[in-house]
């Protein structure tokens, strides 16, 4: 029994130690709160109130933005809103929306603000009367897709689905120029794509490509040995390590790893980049609308947009530069693929099903 007692007390000590280190967050002990990945919340509580100005209390943002960007933004938000605690819940777009679905069903939405990738989801939410109309002071500066009628959502960041190739394995002059070309036998068994049941932007690109080329395009891709490689990050790894020569992937993933010295290069396909203007919207169920509105304003301001660009995405404002190493939006936007978000909003399940049926089964 003595040994049992030893083990139990060891465990107890360990639990308390860990509990202690987690519990100290947000206690204003001077260290920056690290934002979270995978659904952890983290509070960026500021010190005690300095002035009574600005929004206060707490807001929860559900987002699919990468953790490193939340990392970057947190201190800035803290500076801008000293009295506000901003909490994050981060996951893939489809995970966040699955969580939203469960919460809508249970009648208890935890989010005040929503920043997921797929614009069509906002149309769905608007249809369910779940978005709060708000015309931000920066609304007019936003140059992309936005709800100009009811002001329920507006683009806040631009992600682009492009082609990436591994420069160790493919010479620049040999690299594919179009999405269409990926069905060419030249790329047999060399293409990896992102799973639209996991990623919102992949859902958008799947929809765009199936509208432009028909589902036969995916059948041909499949016959040419293209495979689903999981979420954007696992596809990124498969490209970087050379498991595949070519990937259909987000531009921001490529820019980020290229900057780190990995052997990848971006191709802006001539048959049209898939531009996804990911929105921000306030849930109508929010208990802290004032704060939510202020945070929307901040995201759309030049400061907020600079954070977006540092995170390798494009700004929705024309007065903010493109991310390092990227082609300016204006160059590839005119040729971009056309997407009907309303149509996609009503056909999400169908698109995923069809994709899985073609690409996902033997």
């Amino acid at each position, binding site marked *: *029994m003595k*040994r*049992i007692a*030893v*083990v139990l007390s*060891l465990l107890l000590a360990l*639990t308390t130690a*860990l*509990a202690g280190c*987690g519990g100290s*967050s947000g206690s204003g002990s001077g260290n920056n*709160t*690290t934002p*979270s*990945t*995978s*659904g*952890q*919340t*983290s509070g960026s509580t500021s010190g005690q109130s300095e002035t009574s100005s600005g929004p206060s209390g707490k807001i929860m943002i559900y987002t699919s933005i990468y*953790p490193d960007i939340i990392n970057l933004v947190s201190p800035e938000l803290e500076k801008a809103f000293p009295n506000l605690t901003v*909490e994050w819940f981060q*996951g*893939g777009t*489809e995970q966040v*929306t*699955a*969580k939203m*679905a*469960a919460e809508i*069903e*249970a*009648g*208890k939405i*935890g989010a005040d603000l929503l920043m997921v990738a797929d614009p069509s989801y906002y149309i769905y939410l608007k249809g369910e009367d779940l978005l709060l109309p708000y015309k931000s002071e920066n609304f007019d500066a936003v140059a992309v897709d936005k709800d100009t009628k009811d002001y329920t959502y507006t683009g806040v960041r631009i992600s682009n689905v492009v082609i990436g190739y591994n420069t160790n394995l493919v010479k620049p002059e040999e690299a594919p120029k179009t999405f269409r070309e990926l069905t060419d036998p030249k790329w047999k068994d060399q293409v990896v794509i992102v*799973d639209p*049941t*996991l990623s919102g932007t992949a859902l958008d690109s799947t929809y765009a490509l199936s509208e432009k080329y028909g589902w036969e395009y995916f059948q041909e891709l499949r016959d040419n040995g293209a*495979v*689903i*490689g*999981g979420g*954007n*990050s*696992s596809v990124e790894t498969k490209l*970087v*390590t*050379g*498991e595949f020569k070519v990937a259909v992937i987000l531009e921001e993933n490529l820019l980020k790893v290229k900057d*780190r*010295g*990995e052997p990848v290069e971006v191709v802006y396909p001539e048959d049209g980049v898939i531009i996804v203007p990911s929105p921000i919207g306030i849930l109508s169920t929010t208990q802290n609308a004032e704060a939510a509105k202020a945070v929307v304003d901040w995201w759309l301001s030049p400061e907020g947009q600079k954070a977006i660009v540092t995170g390798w995405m494009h700004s929705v404002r024309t007065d903010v530069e493109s991310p390092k190493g990227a082609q300016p939006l204006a160059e590839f936007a005119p040729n971009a693929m056309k997407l009907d978000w309303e149509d996609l909003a009503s056909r999400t*399940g169908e698109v*995923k*099903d069809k994709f*899985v*049926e073609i*690409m*996902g089964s*033997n």
Partner: protein
Amino acid sequence: MRFRFDAKSVAIALAVAVLLVFGIFPIVLLVLDSFIVDGQLSLDNFREVYANKSNLTAVWNTVKAAGLTMLIGTAISFPLAWLVGRTDLPFKNVFRTLIITPYMIPPFVGAIAWGYLANPRIGYLNQWIRALFPVFEQGPLNIYSMGGMVWVLVLFYFPFSFLTISRALEKMDPSLEEAARISGASPLRVLRNITIPLTAPAIAAGALLVFVAVASAFGIPSLIGGQARIQVVTTRIISYVYVGTPEAMHEATALAVVLLALSVVVLWFSNWYLAKREYFTLGGKSTRPTLVELGRWKWPAVVLFVIVCLIFAVLPVLALVMTSVVKTMGRGFAFDNISLDVWKSVLNDRVTWRTLRTSLLSSVLAATGGTLVGLLIAYLKVKTRMRLRTIPDFLATFCNATPGIVLALGLIIAFSGKYGVNMYGTFWILVVAYFVRHLSYAVRQAAAALEQVHPSLEEAALSSGASWLRLFKDVTIPLIGPSLVGGWFLVFMPSFYELTMSVLLYSSKATPVGYHLYHLSSFASPQSAAVLSVLILILVLIGNLLMRWASRGKVSL
């Protein structure tokens, strides 16, 4: 014994009530839910789900993968268990531990590791093979295939069968084998005519355990099956859940019910089969069995084991460690391309510790509750004469055989407030899920120990005037203490790295480390995932050593 209102009955009734409310109620609700469309009793959900060809294929793939894994797993478990348990194989204790290392590695982590080892183009193994035999242009191993998936499944699920067979071999009365030997039968003949028939029930039980576990596995099929274009039932269920609409949820439940039915049939068959031929003599009273002398086969057997252990235990861990220290992934593993940056960032990331804490806390609670409730259920089964006393034990086993995804869906339906309790989105639903799913390990462990306690000890205490509580506290529990600790760990470990249920039940307030790992590898940073995997592995190994030490070698994974 009739039911009386005393401490014993109340305690047992409470334990059974907990099991019914948290385990059986959600599963029953889920089954009912799948039969209801717009408030009407209907089979539409099933009709819809099975009109979809992808779902039928998924069911077929599940049966195929589970069946193949079962066959291959059993085929390798028996000889290995026999060599370890019945021969004079050198170093057999070391081998015994090493060979079941995969049992301690979360299957999901194993799938990641094998992805690095054996993907056709740049898998470490394939690179090494190609360096030795330049005839291959790519491959020759392809983990992304049905064969590859079954291979990984075998590695991670064969311990179920290996452990069951080992235990039976240990318990088997050796006098029969000895009698045969003395009568002049050759070792092979003894094996064929005595050992195999006697262990047949254990072989069958182990095989069925493998089948059920594989059919409900999610980690390996989602990682390897995805790229191999192999959909199984669990991955289909998750896709339906991710579609997010109420209709999709109904389709998910309709699919889940089929998985449940599959498990129930197998469980029922296994119980029926075992009840008919339980030959074991319990208690291990006889002398240690004489071991078969391997003679000149001794060293070949050692070599075989070394190779097996290398493949089963060393390779996957090596792959993870290598991946976790590479500086630029584009260059692969090279000694001038090593950096500990990822390790530093993972260790410095508060989320790592927060998720570890969540998992540690929830699994400590689940294990403690499981040990308590398990003990009472085992006591009811072994030490009382109440009618229907074995039912709760069966129900606990049923909850364990219920695929994690099914159970998690049931818990969501039952505890999102519709029935008065709202735990969904909180830490507590994780505790409940881990508790219910792994309870049967604690029951089994406690029941086995209680069977060894002679009633005379309890009678002595009772006749000296001790109350039942006192008896329980001062006699029963101390007697079976080490086994209880063992049971505690058997619940704790799989809860600690649980993934399947966590994928559905995690929330912003409570994210377990298993889910964090899944998230890192799919959405954030696969290299961090490798680091976290190694970290979890180290923790689990320490846990296993502690468990062995605390239970005085009686229990280990």
